[in-house]
């Protein structure tokens, strides 16, 4: 357990020191959300209707920017080899690094979402469900991202391939995250059914993605 927390703490400290990933993700999120109304025109009703979808898709893209860094730096400077010889099985190493990614990227993006929702005229009664669904869905985004990062590790230009691999896997999170929000805004489908499926997706991802990530990492150390 100490090894797990020390790895999470080190990754958070590195994310803070290096700084770039968090501000890039937040900046990208802001720009995408801000630029879409310019393209769609100032129709407030239209914006309110599509706001959940825009906020979610932009969040996925913003998270995707930093996901390829999850293992890349440790692989490049040889740290991953030493970590692999430590007391943690690679499954838990992957889980620790995905957790650190969620704390450093997922949480800031979740907290930024309600501010950006103002730009899109999101109905006031949907703000709480926006934060709730994103807080629930972002761990799945980080853990699936870690899987993609492990698979594309060591490829020269893995970033684009990573997006191709991972974005389809994000679809269920997107569908049920947006469905839960629309249930509150427009009805008539019940909020809880979509939200609970989103919870199930996240829980299953947290368990399964590290196992697959560890298998990919083993191949990469070979």
């Amino acid at each position, binding site marked *: 357990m100490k*090894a797990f927390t020390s*790895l999470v703490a*080190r990754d958070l400290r590195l994310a803070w020191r290096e700084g770039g990933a968090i501000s890039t993700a937040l900046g990208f999120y802001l720009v995408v959300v801000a630029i879409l109304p310019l393209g769609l025109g100032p129709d407030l009703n239209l914006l309110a209707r599509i706001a959940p979808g825009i906020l979610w898709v932009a969040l996925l893209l913003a998270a995707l920017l930093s996901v390829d860094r999850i293992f890349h730096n440790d692989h490049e*400077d*040889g*740290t991953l*080899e030493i970590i692999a*010889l*430590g*007391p943690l099985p690679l499954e838990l190493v992957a889980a620790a690094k995905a957790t650190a990614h969620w704390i450093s990227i997922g949480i800031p993006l979740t907290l930024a979402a309600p501010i950006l929702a103002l730009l899109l005229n999101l109905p006031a009664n949907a703000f709480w469900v926006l934060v709730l669904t994103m807080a629930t869905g972002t761990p799945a985004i980080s853990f699936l991202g870690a899987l993609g990062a492990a698979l594309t590790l060591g490829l020269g230009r893995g970033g684009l391939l990573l997006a191709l691999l991972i974005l389809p896997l994000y679809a269920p999170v997107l569908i049920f995250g947006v469905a839960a929000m629309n249930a509150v805004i427009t009805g008539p489908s019940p909020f809880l059914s979509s939200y609970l499926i989103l919870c199930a997706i996240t829980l299953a991802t947290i368990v399964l993605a590290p196992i697959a990530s560890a298998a990919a990492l083993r191949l990469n150390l070979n």
Partner: protein
Amino acid sequence: MKLALKDLKCVRGGRTVFEGLSLNVRDGTGVELTGPNGSGKSSLLRMLAGFIPAAAGHIHLEGGDNDVSLGEQCHYVGHLNGVKRALSVQENLAFWTEYLGGGEIESALSAFDLENLSHIPAGLLSAGQARRLGLARLALVHRPVWLLDEPSVSLDKGSRKFLSTAIASHIKAGGIVIAATHAPLGVKFAQSLKLGTGGRS
């Protein structure tokens, strides 16, 4: 304690790098691995660390801790230092102490003459200093088997002395050191293993 390698075979990319390799290393022994480029020195060390599965044969550490893998009882020093540039020298070692469950940072710093650099970000270190920081892990965390792949790369004459002192004292304390090297490390190795010419298929 005895590290036993029996009939090891290594295949990389469809090419047999070496086969039928057997070696017994008792505790308190150093082994010098030599051989031309591509003869499988690095592959053998990575195989011992558990990164590469053996195509045939097996590796066993008699008298080791049977609950953990051989890799967890090894220090592997490869071509990369495993140094985080954004962390200071001290913080780099502090992480390894916490993660690997190690000992005193101060003694590891002095073993590789890093005391004066302890608060400098590792990104500002020269190549030789960064190498010393990578090697300081050896003194920081006790592990019985050391696998060293060209450990003296980019070290100057003075720094090489710190390395040879560390290796010699580890051997004296009953450890096992297997080092692949082209340049002499300044340590008397009891055993030496010369790998083949490579390029055979």
